């Protein structure tokens, strides 16, 4: 099925302007649906044709293909409404469309069979046509009583409201399962399913494997040998939970888990959208906010509220944003809204179509919000009612209205206009004083420049006869806009008399140098100015309350009715308005986002808890209980363990309570991590088992821990940690990236020189070895090492990472400068740590890289490998002609050192290093 969807993607036709994302997704979903239909058909449609119903089988097809023109769209074509079986039978202007029992006599069937309908290019598939035919043949059954009246537009059916993800959260009872392997309720839910499938948990992974798993999971770094020894020596029964606690108290935890959230938030240090991809110098403050918040275990609901409405919170306590920014607490709230400033924003770039660019920022922001907080792909509803999920187009624009005061496309603020200054009054006074001095110097330079140009011209004019000389001089000194036609022609005929500041160097290099020196002096003075620091935040202009319109076909040039901010219709009880409660008086901000944030984190929204619990589960086990972590809609995957998911979600949001029977985690991510990581499910071995594999080949029921490849950042950070190079300095502006001589993106300061722009090496003083989360995320310059190992390029955001296995990864570890450098540093470290003897170095290398001593066999192979390398290196050591020419600054490493480096590189490329066992 997955395969079918992928193939479908490849066949994508070109979609018109702006329709691509939504359109492509719609097609994928359509084919996904067909696939589902085929699979389901095995048990229902083809065997028991009589069980075909309007609600279950036919309406989804009609909704996907026909409702646009026949029921939900702005106009009802041919007077035919297909939303109810009754309406179909009743028909439109051409008469009844359905004759139960007689497909050939039913207009609806004939029109789609002949391909006349739907009018657009995408026709019904043969399976869909067949379902329609057999439904009519078997009497065109509808199982529910159809409503007497149906108002215009999209109607959400009871079946849709009953979709599992939209149902209120309840806490299912924990299955009563006895047995020593049940460590907590997670295990009970999983074991209950094991029983019926004749599966059992695997034995616990060996302790050292468990420790490595915990480190890489919580820190993204491997344990050191001393970590492992300390654990081995701890004989207390709660050594493992204590280890987890220790790991989560370390700042390394926030650095690891922030990366997960930054993926879905679409974190980037650049504006994207155009090829300029200009840097966002203050985006990192949001990254740092996320790290700090996770480290102090800010309750997740509060974390969400601050990100959606931190500015509104700040203005409940401070008179303006600048004042608020000086208060450490409100500063955090403002930094949190960086979440809403993550979408690409090309509105400051020259030459973009502003209407398109602005609306794209809004659309991308809504995608980030909806995929991260609602787990729905509402983007489809931007242009029309969602074809598969019960999301009317109006819902999309009601949600847009929540953000409209801050993102008003009619009164747009460019990225630089959205910054909040962190200058104090004293800073400002100092800056003004410095600027005064600089202006004075600039004026002096200006005068000097005129003097030089005049002198250069006088000298140049000496080559001309006196008449021409005077005429040229007069023409030149006449302001350009006051020159006569003759003067203009004269200057054009004698281009060399047109001396400007830019070409002065061609006439009088000394003068040009002096001007340059004056410029440097001015720059020096300006450099004394206190640097103005900023926060990048989402804020609203005071009193802003723009009207939001529904855009027909998603086109801003076709506004239709005005809409108020609201939640999703499908989540409000039928008949109740989903409008958000807003204050009647007008506070400094609209409070729309605050109201939305309160609703998102309330029990009225069952999606948030389910989504975040599923995400956390996914980061521990490699896949979620729901395999589509950002699509919990009708086209998303069903949960493999719905009761477990709901139990976890309910426990997550329940007030703190340690009693296992009334467990409440109080929105604490650390407690949720601990709960999952202390389960048998997590602690079991990853070993395979032929018998169980036959019953559950994909391990969907968690009878073993899945083996997982480390993600890109964990691989890079682990390399740095093992080699001893890791610089654990936290926070601050991103570590820059640059292009190397052949266009590969590496960590480094971008400095090029000469016409051919050859990169220049700039020493970075250890900054280059900081953790990957601090490396600049320039959308157009993805770091080659991370990119090769599937780190996302932030087009919008990353809902779920892929894990590929391709040859460039092998080449990266075999041959890249990064791999070679880390291998060398690792070898240097072995010499420092373990002394001159091979035996000790080998043992140390295994412990550092793999967290265990080498087996006897490995030990022998390593010795043998070193022998072979040394022999080969010695035999190959032919003096290099050009190496002999100059004395090398550093003596070449001995064959033994070189061999050890190879050993180190091999360990750092090994599967055991790259995978979490």
């Amino acid at each position: 099925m997955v395969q079918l969807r992928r193939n479908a993607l490849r066949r994508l036709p070109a979609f018109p302007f702006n329709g691509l994302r939504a359109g492509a997704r719609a097609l994928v979903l359509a084919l996904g649906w067909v696939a589902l239909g085929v699979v389901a058909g095995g048990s229902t449609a083809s065997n028991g044709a009589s069980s075909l119903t309007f609600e279950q089988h036919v309406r989804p097809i009609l909704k996907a293909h026909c409702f646009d023109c026949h029921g939900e769209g702005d106009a009802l074509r041919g007077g035919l409404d297909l939303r109810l079986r009754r309406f179909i039978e009743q028909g439109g202007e051409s008469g009844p469309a359905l004759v139960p029992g007689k497909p050939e006599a039913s207009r609806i069937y004939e029109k789609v069979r002949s391909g006349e309908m739907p009018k657009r290019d995408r026709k019904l598939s043969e399976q869909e046509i067949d379902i329609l035919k057999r439904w009519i043949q078997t009497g065109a059954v509808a199982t529910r009583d159809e409503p007497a009246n149906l108002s215009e537009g999209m109607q959400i059916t009871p079946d849709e409201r009953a979709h599992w993800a939209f149902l209120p959260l309840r806490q299912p009872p924990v299955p009563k399962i006895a047995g020593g392997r049940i460590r907590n309720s997670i295990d009970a839910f999983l074991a209950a399913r094991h029983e019926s499938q004749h599966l059992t948990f695997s034995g616990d992974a060996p302790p050292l494997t468990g420790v490595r798993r915990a480190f890489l999971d919580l820190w993204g770094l491997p344990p050191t040998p001393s970590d492992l020894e300390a654990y081995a020596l701890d004989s207390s029964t709660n050594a493992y939970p204590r280890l987890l606690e220790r790991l989560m108290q370390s700042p390394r935890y926030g650095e690891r888990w922030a990366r997960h959230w930054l993926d879905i938030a679409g974190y980037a240090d650049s504006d994207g959208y155009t090829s300029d991809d200009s840097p966002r110098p203050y985006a990192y403050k949001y990254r740092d906010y996320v790290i700090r918040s996770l480290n102090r275990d800010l309750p997740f609901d509060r974390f969400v509220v601050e990100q959606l409405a931190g500015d509104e919170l700040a203005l409940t306590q401070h008179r303006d944003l600048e004042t608020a920014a000086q208060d450490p607490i409100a500063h955090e709230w403002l930094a949190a809204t960086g979440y809403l400033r993550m979408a690409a924003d090309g509105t400051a770039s020259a030459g973009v179509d502003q209407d398109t660019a602005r609306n794209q920022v809004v659309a991308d922001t809504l995608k980030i919000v909806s995929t991260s907080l609602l787990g729905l792909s509402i983007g489809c509803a931007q242009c029309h009612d969602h074809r598969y999920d019960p999301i009317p187009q109006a819902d999309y624009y009601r949600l847009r209205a929540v953000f409209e005061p801050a993102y008003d496309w009619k009164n747009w603020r460019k990225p630089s206009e959205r910054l909040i200054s962190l200058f104090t009054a004293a800073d400002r006074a100092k800056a003004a004083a410095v600027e005064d001095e600089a202006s004075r110097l600039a004026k002096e330079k200006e005068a000097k420049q005129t003097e030089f140009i005049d002198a250069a011209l006088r000298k140049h004019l000496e080559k001309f006869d006196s008449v021409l000389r005077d005429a040229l001089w007069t023409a030149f000194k006449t302001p350009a806009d006051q020159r006569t036609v003759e003067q203009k022609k004269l200057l054009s005929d004698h281009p060399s008399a047109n001396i400007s500041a830019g070409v002065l160097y061609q006439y009088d290099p000394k003068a040009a140098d002096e001007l340059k020196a004056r410029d440097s002096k001015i720059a020096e003075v300006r450099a004394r100015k206190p640097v103005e620091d900023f926060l990048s935040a989402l804020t609203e202009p005071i009193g802003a309350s723009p009207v939001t319109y529904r855009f027909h076909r998603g086109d801003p040039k076709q506004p239709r009715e005005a809409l108020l901010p609201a939640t999703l219709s499908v989540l409000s009880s039928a008949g109740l308005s989903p409008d958000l409660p807003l204050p009647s008086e007008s506070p400094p901000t609209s409070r729309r986002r605050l109201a939305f944030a309160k609703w998102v984190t309330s029990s009225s929204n069952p999606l948030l808890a389910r989504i975040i619990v599923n995400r956390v589960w996914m980061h521990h086990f490699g896949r979620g209980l729901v395999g589509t972590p950002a699509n919990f809609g009708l086209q998303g995957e069903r949960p493999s363990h719905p009761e477990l998911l709901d139990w976890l979600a309910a426990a997550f949001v329940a007030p703190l309570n340690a009693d296992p029977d009334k467990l409440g985690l109080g929105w604490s991510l650390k407690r949720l991590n601990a709960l999952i990581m202390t389960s048998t499910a997590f602690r079991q071995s990853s070993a395979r088992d032929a018998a169980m594999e036959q019953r559950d080949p994909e391990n969907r029921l968690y009878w073993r821990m899945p083996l997982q490849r480390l993600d890109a950042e964990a691989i890079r950070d682990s390399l740095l940690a093992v080699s001893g190079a890791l610089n654990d300095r936290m926070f601050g502006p991103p570590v820059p990236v640059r292009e190397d001589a052949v266009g590969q993106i590496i960590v480094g300061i971008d400095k090029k020189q000469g016409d051919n722009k050859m990169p220049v090496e700039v020493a970075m003083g250890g900054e280059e070895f900081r953790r990957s989360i601090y490396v600049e995320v320039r959308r157009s310059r993805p770091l080659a090492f991370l990119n090769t190992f599937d780190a996302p390029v932030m087009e919008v955001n990353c809902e779920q990472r892929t894990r590929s296995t391709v040859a460039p990864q092998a080449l990266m570890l075999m041959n890249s400068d990064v791999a070679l450098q880390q291998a060398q540093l690792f070898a240097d470290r072995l010499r420092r740590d373990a002394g001159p003897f091979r035996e000790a170095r080998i043992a140390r290398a295994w412990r550092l890289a793999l967290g265990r001593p080498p087996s006897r066999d490995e030990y022998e192979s390593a010795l043998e490998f070193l022998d072979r390398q040394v022999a080969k290196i010695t035999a190959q050591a032919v003096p290099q002609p050009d190496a002999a020419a100059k004395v090398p600054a550093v003596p070449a490493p001995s064959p033994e050192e070189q061999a050890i480096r190879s050993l180190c590189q091999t360990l750092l490329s090994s599967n055991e290093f790259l995978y979490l066992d």
Partner: protein
Amino acid sequence: MTPTSFYTRRQFLERNALGVGSVALACLLRNDGLLATPPAVPRTAQSFDLKPKISGSRGRARAMISLFMHGGPSHVDLFDPKPELSRRSGEDYSGEITFSFVDRASKKLFGSPWQFQQHGASGTAVSELLPHFARIVDDVCLIRSMHTDINGHEPSIWSMNTGRAQPGRPALGSWVTYALGNPSQDLPAYVVLTDPGGNPVDGARNWSNGWMPPLFQGTVVRSREPRILNLDSPPRLQGDLQRQNLQFLEKLNREHLARHPGESDLEARIASYELAAHMQLAAKEALDLSGESEATQKLYGLDDPITKEYGTRCLLARRLIERGVRFVQLFVNGQIWDNHENIRKGLADCCRKTDRPSAALVMDLKARGLLDTTIVHWGGEIGRLPVTENHGAAEKAGRDHNGQGFSTWLAGGGIRGGTVYGATDEFGHKAVEDRVSPNDYHATLLHLFGFDHSELAFHYNGQPQHLTDGKPSRVIHNLLA
């Protein structure tokens, strides 16, 4: 690792097909995303591969070699004889001229110091500076009416190379690779051969994939080791050392796998190292000229120190095309064609370096039956002015930039040989007849490859993007055989 332990590609894919997640499989099947960095995430909206965008090939051309001569080769001294310019040499030019270097600007016409003669059955007039080019004129279409209308190097390079006079768009090679896919099993589809003297102006941007995925980026075959990024073993591990490493790695990985029997991802990763090693050999083989006959080496001028370097790269280009590479672009170092001063010596030097190898490439491709399907392009981004750039003494004279008119030649892949297309004015300043813009040039190339420039689209920011950038562009049918 013995050669027998290499899996064939098919085996490799089959093994992967059995076990690796379909996402990984999609990456593997991306017929040689294997060398270029694969796109990080197969995004919902687009998936990328190196499969052809149309089935079969409607076009004559299958590959292209671009000999990019950045700096501005002086068309009036090489390809575009101007008797009127010679006749009035020394007089003042009466028209408007835009200069880049005003201090040395002059309006004195500067007739070419070199003689032109007609060559071949077509009788194409060629400067005495290009005796080898003179031998292939019957296979070449000489365009004398190129124009970018911009005098600066970079914006004109961007126009010629990406379709717009701004940086940041995918290079022509990226488009060709995107359109045609990659038939090669072991080599990158888009190869750039840089000069040992250094990168061209604007560096790596010349082969940037812009906003296309990295899959479509040019792979630099450098003039020195390592030839291909991350492909060649580091100097420290030359010879058998890396093979020993890989053997040892495989041993460790096999033992690890024995503890995780049936774990297909681990198996796939073991195989990926084998494939990587295999690619190292394939690329080495392609870049090894020792099997070329003495006659061939001589044809390209490998026997002459002046032509040896450029000849080597031209010969490499042919070997790469033979092995299925789609697009090869050669650059020269810095701005050798930018003859502001002492053009008499500078231009002659450039020609000595490039003329024989460039002509040899066309002759060799033709002899091997590859010219029918391979487009060869020779040209820069601008031409030079018909007036003197004044450096005080006549022998120091040069020419300033001219984006208003210049010459370029094409051969092979469906180009009509023995033709001259378009013309500049009587002084060679501006293209006036049958003007060819960079976008026309691109539209014509895509046509030769079987694509309509207005249809071949890449979606970026939800909008279809075209190589010709929505500008008025025409396929120039008069160039086609």
